[in-house]
């Protein structure tokens, strides 16, 4: 019998932190709030390390832990409150608690001067609780609990600056768009219940594996619905619109939730459900296409953004597209690998950007930055590591994971076009990241020195951030450099450790990884790696040309490509389109059909017109004597007649 790993404790640590800070935080001194906020995630991280050590000593995986059996049971279906630990979970746990802890540490410095310090940290801990639940869940239902929970906390944190209207709206947008995704997830769950009578990962997947004849059909339906859920959470086409707006939240939130962890939940879910997707080539193809399209599409928008956080937001969408692409070509290990490296360098990018914003007293417009290299040396060097990593330059982390995805795509028959799209995107990525790098750190300063400065100390010029913020940057900087080495491919003389580690999880789905690569494959891989390296360097060169050596070139290029420039600058008018096609009709329906129609128009149209001019005092009387009751009775009679007629008609047509 396997000894207990106390998995249940894992999410409870941050929950306790949430409870303490949420209930007492208002009265606690700031230091105590920070201590609570750091201690509990740290405890969770230590436990994860302990689990890793146990796993290293030969703990049998997957390992299942049940608490309430059955948690809920309905006729024909039951679900347990149980956690599952396998290699995939372990990787996710490390990322969530590790990066989470680092970002918590950073926040202590970043949020020091903010109102509602305790509120911020209680939300952050709550987020970790839900994220751990999501990752540990052993069934779709519990996963959905975490899934919705992180969405809710993300909503709370986006709207954290509640004095800003835009922040509240961004939060709402994120929530509503995610509801559409959840709609898919829920429907998928219902279909799973209807067909398998269970939501447990093990049972569902075992059931699918036991029936080799199950192909496509309702499995495709379930897979596509799950995919809808994933596109919502991971900000893919068509539901990506919320993520750029989500940047209204505090920067550590963007780093933790909207870059490193929550938005990758969709990728995690695809990987988790790989058995299901493996039976539906159509769904897989769609995943791949969505991934590649989003990667490219978001990258083009990112090229023209001037808000530093928005550039990063679009690059996040784009990188998530790569992960989807990996899943779509059944290279799940590569997708998870990119998820890990991306968590490192994207969290770093956001935190470094936060450090810059902090230094400039809240300025986010890159056109008003420049020349910060000397003033913020630590930020600059760590940011450089991250930019190199995301651009895919050897030997930084992003190179390995991105190259692995592109290679896997190239080797999948019939997906050469997707590979080409991915390659072009890599070039674009390199270009806009170096653009950001140059605009922020090079050239002449364009910021207003006097208005810069931060917090209650009053304006005192541009300054490097405190060490509570810089330490996380350094840690993540090292990881951005070395974090990719866990996936050093065999073709380049490495061991591809991560793929082997994750193999037990994915063996059933991706046979490609089991094939022993030949020398020819190695040669091909090396060539591909060289090509993507060249493309990245080209992007760098172009950025260097346009934003350092000949800045006027950027303007003239803008002039010359006006037809191309306008749609990109307007983000292809997608928000406007959604507004016109979906939001406005619903509101109009509500307002006209029900609001004006039933409530006022038909009922007492004459009265409203008449009393609108009368004084307000008469409104009570008006309603007493108006035809309201009579009209309601009229509606009741009509409704009753309709019900009877429909009942008679339907019962006889059966």
């Amino acid at each position: 019998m396997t000894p207990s790993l106390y998995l249940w404790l894992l999410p409870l640590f941050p929950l306790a932190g949430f409870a303490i800070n949420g209930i007492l935080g208002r009265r606690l001194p700031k230091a105590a709030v920070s201590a609570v906020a750091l201690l509990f995630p740290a405890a969770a991280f230590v436990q994860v390390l302990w689990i890793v050590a146990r796993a290293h000593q030969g703990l049998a995986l997957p390992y299942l832990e049940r608490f309430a059996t059955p948690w809920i049971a309905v006729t024909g279906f039951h679900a347990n409150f149980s956690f599952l630990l396998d290699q995939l979970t372990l990787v996710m746990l490390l990322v969530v608690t590790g990066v989470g802890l680092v970002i918590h540490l950073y926040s202590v410095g970043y949020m020091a001067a903010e109102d509602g310090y305790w509120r911020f940290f209680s939300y952050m801990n709550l987020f970790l609780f839900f994220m751990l639940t999501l990752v540990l869940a052993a069934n779709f239902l519990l996963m959905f609990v975490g899934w919705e929970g992180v969405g809710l906390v993300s909503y709370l944190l986006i709207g954290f600056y509640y004095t800003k209207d835009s922040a509240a709206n961004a939060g709402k947008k994120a929530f509503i768009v995610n509801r559409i995704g959840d709609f898919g997830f829920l429907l998928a769950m219902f279909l799973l219940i209807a067909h398998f009578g269970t939501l447990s990962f093990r049972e569902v997947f075992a059931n699918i594996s036991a029936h080799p004849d199950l192909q496509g059909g309702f499995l495709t339906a379930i897979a596509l619905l799950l995919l809808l859920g994933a596109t919502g959470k991971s900000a893919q086409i068509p539901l990506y619109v919320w993520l750029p707006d989500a940047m209204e939240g505090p920067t550590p939130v963007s780093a933790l939730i909207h870059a490193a962890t929550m938005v990758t939940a969709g990728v995690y879910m695809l990987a988790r459900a790989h058995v299901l997707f493996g039976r539906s080539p159509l769904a897989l193809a769609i995943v791949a296409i969505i991934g590649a399209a989003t990667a490219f599409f978001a990258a083009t928008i990112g090229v023209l953004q001037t808000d530093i956080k928005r550039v990063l937001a679009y690059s996040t969408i784009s990188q998530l597209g790569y992960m989807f692409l990996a899943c779509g070509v059944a290279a799940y290990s590569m997708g998870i690998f990119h998820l890990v490296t991306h968590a490192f360098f994207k969290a770093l990018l956001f935190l470094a950007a936060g450090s810059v914003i902090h230094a400039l007293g809240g300025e986010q417009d890159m056109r008003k930055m420049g020349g910060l290299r000397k003033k913020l040396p630590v930020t600059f060097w760590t940011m450089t590591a991250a930019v190199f990593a995301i651009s895919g330059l050897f030997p930084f982390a992003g190179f390995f994971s991105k190259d692995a995805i592109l290679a896997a795509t190239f080797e999948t028959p019939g997906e050469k076009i997707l590979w080409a799209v991915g390659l072009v995107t890599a070039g674009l990525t390199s270009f806009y990241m170096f653009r950001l790098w140059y605009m922020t750190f090079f050239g002449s300063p364009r910021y207003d020195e006097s208005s810069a400065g931060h917090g209650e100390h009053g304006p005192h010029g541009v300054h490097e951030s405190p060490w509570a913020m810089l330490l996380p940057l350094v840690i993540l900087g090292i990881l951005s450099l070395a974090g990719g080495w866990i996936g050093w491919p065999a073709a380049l003389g490495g061991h591809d450790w991560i793929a082997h580690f994750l193999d037990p999880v994915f063996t059933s789905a991706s046979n490609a990884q089991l094939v022993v690569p030949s020398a020819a494959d190695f040669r091909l891989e090396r060539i591909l790696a060289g090509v993507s390296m060249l493309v990245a360097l080209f992007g760098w060169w172009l950025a260097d040309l346009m934003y350092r050596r000949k800045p006027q070139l950027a303007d003239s290029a803008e002039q010359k490509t006006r037809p191309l420039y306008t749609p990109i600058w307007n983000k292809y008018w997608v928000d406007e389109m959604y507004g016109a096609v979906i939001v406005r009709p619903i509101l109009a329906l509500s307002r006209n059909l029900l609001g004006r129609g039933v409530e006022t128009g038909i009922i007492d149209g004459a009265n409203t017109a008449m009393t609108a001019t009368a004084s307000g005092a008469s409104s009570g009387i008006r309603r007493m004597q108006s035809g309201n009751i009579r009209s309601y009775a009229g509606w009741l009679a009509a409704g009753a007649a309709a019900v009877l007629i429909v009942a008679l008609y339907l019962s006889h047509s059966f």
Partner: protein
Amino acid sequence: MNEPMTPSMIAFSPALRILPEILMTLTGVLVMLVEAVLKPRTSRKPLGIVAILGTLAAIAASVYQLFLPAGTAFFGTVQSDAFSVFFHLVIGCIVLVTLLISLDYFEGHTSFVGEYYALILFGATGMMLMTCSVELLMVFISLEISSISTYILAGYRKRSATSPEASIKYFLLGSFATAFFLYGIALCFGATGSTNLYEIAKGVADGASPLLLTVAFGMMLIGLGFKVSLAPFHVWTPDVYEGAPAPVVGLMSTAPKAAAFAVLLRIAYGAFGTAIHIWMPLVWIMAVLSMTIGNLGALTQRNVKRMLAYSSIAHAGYLLVAFTALAPMGIAAASFYTAAYAAMNVGAFGIISYLSGYNEARTSLSDFAGIARRHPVAAAAFAVFLISLIGIPFTAGFFGKFYVFTAAINSGNAWLAVLGLLNSGVAAFYYLRLLAQMYMVPVEPPREADTAHARPAFILAMAILVLAVFALGIFPGRILDLARAGAATFSGPANAASQTVPVALLRR
């Protein structure tokens, strides 16, 4: 009526079958008697406490009924079983919490507090009787008791213009709807020669005049549909909820609805169980209409009580979705949803009554701006209820919807579930708008009316509700088991008597 004459049946008095109702009635009478003794212009709180104790006794009596073998009494007019106990408990708890909320609400504002408590208790008697009646005439009389007391309670803010207006509207339209219900009973009698649900079930199974039965069921559905504010019989809801005092709205939007849904379940699955083709399409259409009209109507409301009124129409629609599922699962899902909805909706109106007070100082959305700053605890509780109404996991609302839609899909009504889910997506928008108002809008300077401060009774009530919302969301097992045990009693009286699930439930 084949009353099962097992030895245990003879051993106890039939009065035990209606023990909770008897206790409620006696408490109501006691409240009226004590009211007469109390000096004028003194606090009426002792009356409230008497009422609360009586309700607690009734709840205990309901639990006790689980130990009785399920069966009928009084010549087959009432039946106590796990199903009736489930709804007794739901109603009892709603009344208990409403009394706690009301304890300080009316103090000093009206001189009819004693009557208020008595009306609530009598109304609850009616509602409880509805859930255990298996005789349509019994249902009708108890429905009238519950309705009339609610009509009057709706008009309790006598000094305002809207409250008596709400009362009159509700009364006139309600009587109109009750007439339909009564007509339906008469037609049932015409078709099957009985008003007893089991006799009707036999008649339905034997194929007695489907045409007449269809009309009869339609009539009863109209009457009950009005009580639970299903579209297209929902028109009264926004006006009445807007005018009635907030604690009363909390009560009337949940307890009478729970009772009416219990009756509808007994009629649809119990009496018309073999004629499912008659009512299934009808229920399908009304569910879609209610969800859609409710949610779209709520979208553009600026008045919070009206908004919640439309939301309650939508929730009645979700609940009706459960009716499209097959017998045991649909009944269990509907029962559970009733409990979940009760917890969150009573809570929401409780918070409104606390924040706006007797004078309804806060009515429109913008009045709730920045509440989180001035009343952080109340705002947090409100947030919990709203989140539950949206249907976020770990809250009652999520599992309520989850069971309902699972039941619908398992019975092949996938499209209904799709429509329901789309609707709940739209619904998130207006709940969020209120949440955003409370948490994300800059604080305005405090106004004079803002003197609300929480009393222990109110805090206790809210604590109970918040706990209930989470308990139903995180550990729904026990309640769900009871709901399923209730659903299992629908196979007929003989079957109901032999099943011993309820007692096992308690021993678990």
